[in-house]
């Protein structure tokens, strides 16, 4: 029975990896998106590449990560990070590019230094789009982390589903699958609500 299994610890283990990977994706992706906006040459050169990577089957590269990082949380986190950093970069670039020129021109006419321009004009204006990127990153990271846990039999919820199947404890397996669905649904609706509230606030 699933009740006897460490459901809570599996849940927190998955959540921890997802959270770490999403934060890492934000930390790496937002500056990358800003750089693509700030230096148009970078933006022009890499935008299509990043967009192409977004639709590429990155999770299929996981045997490569197994080879490089071993079978552990690092591999799962890296795949999660990689699938999350792409939407963050893309959406940050999109958000900055869509900031009205009027705002930037006003800031420039007030002789705002670069740092203040970023903090007071660009970031607030781009925030809703950046948050969309973060939500997408969270979704992609969750999908890939849980999927990978199932595939390599390691870690939290995904591992639990595989374990129950291997034991042929079918009711428990259905319970674990239902739990995964429940968690991801709740997570996504919460992220969506938060995004809507944020969109209204700005």
């Amino acid at each position, binding site marked *: 029975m699933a009740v006897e299994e460490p459901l809570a610890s599996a849940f927190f283990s998955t959540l921890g990896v997802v959270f770490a990977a999403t934060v890492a994706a934000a930390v790496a992706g937002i500056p990358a998106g800003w750089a693509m906006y700030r230096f148009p040459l970078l933006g022009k050169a890499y935008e299509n590449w990043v967009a192409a990577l977004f639709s*590429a*089957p990155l999770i299929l590269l996981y045997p490569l990560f197994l080879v*490089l990082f071993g079978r552990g949380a690092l591999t799962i986190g890296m795949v999660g990070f990689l699938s999350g950093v792409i939407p963050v970069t893309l959406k940050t670039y999109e958000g900055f590019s869509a900031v009205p020129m009027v705002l930037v021109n006003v800031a420039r006419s007030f002789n705002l230094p670069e740092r203040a321009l970023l903090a007071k004009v660009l970031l607030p204006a781009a925030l809703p789009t950046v948050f969309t990127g973060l939500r997408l990153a969270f979704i992609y990271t969750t999908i890939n982390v849980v*999927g990978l846990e*199932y595939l390599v039999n390691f870690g939290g919820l995904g591992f639990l589903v595989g374990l129950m199947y291997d034991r042929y404890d*079918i009711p428990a397996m259905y319970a674990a699958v239902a739990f*995964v669905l429940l968690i991801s*649904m709740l997570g996504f609706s919460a992220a969506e609500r938060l995004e809507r509230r944020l969109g209204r606030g700005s």
Partner: protein
Amino acid sequence: MAYLRLATLLLAWAAWEALARSGLVFQGVVPSSLTVLASAASELGSLAFYSHLWRSTEEIGVGFAVGSAAGVTLGTSMGISVFFGRMAHPYIHVLAPTPKIIFLPVLMILFGVDIGSKIAMGAISSFFPVVVATYDSVRLVPPVLLRVARSFRASRWQTVAKVYFPSMLPAIVTGMRLGLGVAIIGTLLAEIKLSNRGLGFLAIQRYESFHIPDLYAVLLIIFALAVAANIAIGRVADRLQRRHVMHAPRQVPHRYDLKEPIRGRDRP
């Protein structure tokens, strides 16, 4: 711009080669790109590779066909019938971004560990992007066209076949493009997890027998094939989009437009 791209590629390749030859990491883990290319050539030259390729193509093709057919049917009925749409949309909306691979154990119980569960995996994966895109595309049908159909007393089937579908087609194909991408991922992951044939199986077998250059080669080939499939369906989408723009009705000036709003089921 082109120079920067070229420079990036060259730099990445040089970094890989340097890492492979530096002796910092075990040679088997980061093989030289020449070794990988040589293994790719030998994979492509072996007959066994094509039997794996055929198996994967079969699974992806059938799964994708089943998934998109179901997606288009459900999405269209959800879009046309307001009641059904409101009822089903919340479920589709929250189920769409869940990890589909987690259904694999259920599918293996239902359809067996052989080709059936892989086809079902591809079908489930491609179903969601297609149904979402189809449902959204019903909104793209110009209301003017629906009014014309109605004034000609077109039956419901005629309206669906002659008005809804032609307007929805480009958006549906875009959804199918996404669907094909995730169907490839889903099917290959299912093969990686449990199978004895197919490209996913080939990749994981190379990993398990520690033939790392062969593993990289197989992954390289899979990526190339996935990109090629994506480009092919993208071409179709572009062509449809262009034709659609050419044949789309001009916006009717408002004074000729009917003042009476269309009530009821025709409006998504």
